[in-house]
Structures are given as C-alpha cells and as structure tokens.
C-alpha cells in the first residue's frame, strides 16, 4: 500500500466514523422510533378491526410496499415542493424512512398479535380484565416477543437504508464518503471503508438482538 493511500484511509476513518455516530445512528434511531409507533398503531387498528381506519391502514401498506424507497424519498423531497410542501432534507429522511419501514413492521406486528392465542383474551375477560388491560399486560408483551427477531431485522435494514438519504443531500456517513472520494478519488478504499463501518454497526445490532432474545426467552421460556 502506498503511503498516500494509507494516509487517506487513516484520515478518513475517524471522519466517517464521526458522521456515522453523529448522523447515521441518530437517523436510524429516530426513523425506527417513528416506524415502531406507526407499525404498532397500524397493527392494532387492524387487529381490533376498527372500521374505516382499517381500510386506510391497508391503503398505506399497499402504497408504501408497492413503491421503491428511493422513489419515495425523491417524491417527498423534490416532488412535494411543487405543491408547496417544503421539508428540510433530514426531516424528510426521518419521515420517509419511518413511513417506509413502518409499513413492513406493521405486518410483522400484526402477524405477531394474531399469533397470540384467542384463549389468552378469553382468560383475561374471565378474570375480570377489560380489553385495554388484556392488551397491555398479556397480548402485546407476548406479541412483542414473537415480533422481536423480525423487528431487529427491520432495524438492521433501516441502518443501511439511511445511506439512501445521501441522495436527498443529507450529510450522513455515505455522503461524507462520496465527498471525500470526490476530492481524492480512491473509490475502492473509501467505499470499502464505509462498508466496513456499516458492517461494524450491524454487527453490534446483531449482538444486541441476540442479547435481547436471550433476555426475552429467560422471561417465560418458549411458547407452550
């Protein structure tokens, strides 16, 4: 390796990591939090079969799952200003990533809710609990355990999808790699380096998922 290349790598690594920690990770957390709220709400509306709202939820899932994330980002960031709706790049990224992954996660959560046996609800009623109490103390915790591996999957997918925000000018980790590359032109080294940092982040998330699953399993063993 030439000294120049080595210097480029050692100079850029802390810069990229810095953007990763300051932008990519918070962007992931914010978008995931939004996706989680959306998905639980959308899943509960379908589970409880709330008339009217249910159709809106199916429509949302249909639109989001049927169009590419990149197109959605462009539509909101470059398209909506034509209608007078102007959002900054970062809020747009959070909103679109959250809405996008939220649709997939809603199906995960709905499936997990429906996997909880009907008998759990009946037993709850028979010991005098009301619907809300049964949902919060019995059904949702069990559904959460079922959904946990798939939700972790979504979070890992989302971490990588934040790189798409580069296309709407969000200065995140991948965009930073592009900027540095524009100056020094070492695409293999720089994109390899940024790939490595994504890999490190995802490895940490996978490790956290593993810890979480162990903890959930300890609290209650496998489903009978």
């Amino acid at each position: 390796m030439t000294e120049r290349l080595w210097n480029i790598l050692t100079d850029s690594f802390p810069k990229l990591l810095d953007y990763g920690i300051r932008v990519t990770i918070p962007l992931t957390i914010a978008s995931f939090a939004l996706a989680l709220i959306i998905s639980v709400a959308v899943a509960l509306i379908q589970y409880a079969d709330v008339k009217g709202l249910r159709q809106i939820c199916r429509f949302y899932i249909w639109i989001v799952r049927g169009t590419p994330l990149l197109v959605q980002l462009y539509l909101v960031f470059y398209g909506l200003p034509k209608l007078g709706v102007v959002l900054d790049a970062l809020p747009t990224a959070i909103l679109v990533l959250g809405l996008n992954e939220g649709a997939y996660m809603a199906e995960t959560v709905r499936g997990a809710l429906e996997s909880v046996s009907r008998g759990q609800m009946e037993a709850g009623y028979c010991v005098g609990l009301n619907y809300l109490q049964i949902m919060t103390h019995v059904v949702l915790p069990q559904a959460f355990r079922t959904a946990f591996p798939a939700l972790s999957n979504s979070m890992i997918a989302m971490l990588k999808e934040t790189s798409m925000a580069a296309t709407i000018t969000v200065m995140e980790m991948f965009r930073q790699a592009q900027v540095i590359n524009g100056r020094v032109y070492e695409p293999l080294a720089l994109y390899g380096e940024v790939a490595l940092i994504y890999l490190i982040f995802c490895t940490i998330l996978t490790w956290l998922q593993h810890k979480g699953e162990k903890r959930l399993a300890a609290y209650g063993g496998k489903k009978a």
Partner: protein
Amino acid sequence: MMLEAKNVRKHFDGLEVLKGISLTVEKGDVVAILGPSGSGKTTFLRCLNFLERADAGELIFDGERFDLRTAARADIARVRKKTAFVFQNYNLFLNKTVLQNVTLGLTLAGKMKKAQANEIAVRALERVGMGGKLDSYPSQLSGGQQQRVAIARGLASNPEIIYFDEPTSALDPELIGEVLSVMRGLAEDGMTMLVVTHEMDFARNVSNKVLFMADGSVVESGPSKAFFEHPQQARSRDFIKSILDARQ
C-alpha cells in the same frame, strides 16, 4: 336457587347448536354436563359466561336477571366477577409466572394491593398443590400442573360458581387424576360447579346432577345417581353403554 338458565339458543353459520337449553343450579351443586361431541355442551357453558353471545336466552344469577343476547358490558363484567372459568387448554397467561397468573385479575380488576393479592394467590395455589411453583412459567409446567394453576386462578377471586370446560380432555391420561382430585376436593368443600366432561367416574361419583345433551337439546337431566342407574331415555342409555363399552 343460585343460577338459572332459560331457553338458551345459539346458531353458527346456519347450524343450530343450542335449541333452547334450560338449567337450574342450587348452591353447592356439582352439575356434570354430558353428551356426545358436537352436542353443544361447551357452547352452552360459554354462553353462560358471555364468551359466546347467545341468540336468545336468559340468565338469572343471584336473583339478578340478564339477557344472554343483549346484556351490556357492565352487566357482563358483574356476572364474570362472581364466576370463574376453567378452559380445556388452560389458557394461562404465557408471559406471566404462576403467581402472576393468579394475582393479575386481583390487582388489575379487583384493585387489590399487591401484598394482599400475593397472599390470596399463594393460598389458592397451595390448595391445588402448586405452592412450590410460584415463579415457574406455564411453559415449564406439565398440562396437569397448568390446569391446577388455572383452577387456582379461578378460585382466587372467590367465585360463587366455577365453570369447567372439559378440564381434563387435553391432558395425558396419567395427568388426569391430579386435576380430578383437586376438583373433587372443591366439590367436597361445597363449591358450586358446572362441569362439561367426558369423565364418567367424576360425573357418577362427584357430581350430584347431570345434564345430558345431544344435538343441541337437553335429552335428560336429574340426579346423577338416577341418571346412571336408571336412564330414562334411549339416547342416554346408548351413551352410557357406549362409554362403558369403550372402556373395556
């Protein structure tokens, strides 16, 4: 008279499952509800606790009158407060420990203090021989143990009557005895019980009344002893005979 059900009707998808069932239960009665599969026994029991909405019928409970089809949510809650329901497949809360399974209803629905609820729960669990498994999760228990915990969960709220829906049907044969002996103990303590069952020994020796159903109707009802020794209807005789034959 403690409970009276009058003319309970129910249909599913055009099929008439209950064609007007009536039943009277006195305090301390142990009523065995018998009949071939598909006769509507379970549906009848579920209608009494509003787990199914009957198409028609009346429930008189503790002198209070309820319409099984139209009862309001508050009325249903009031009936359920005085009753307990034991399911065929236990339906313990899978994310809760044995102790929490019993206390959940007391603390949330009964607004009881945790310490008091724990005390009541431990007593109920000891009564069914499960006092040593307080911190186990349902998945760590055998079917017989789970069913005993489910009975304790029912007992904890101090119900006036306990409904049992085929409590031993999902159990391995060697586990049936432990559940039946708990139920026998409750009967001896004077608990009022309504038991849908295929356990003929229990019906014959523990229950004092029998309600024999077939095809959604009551074929015969009366004291257990008379039912087993002198069944009046041909269908009852055939049923008792087929069960005895199957055992040989």
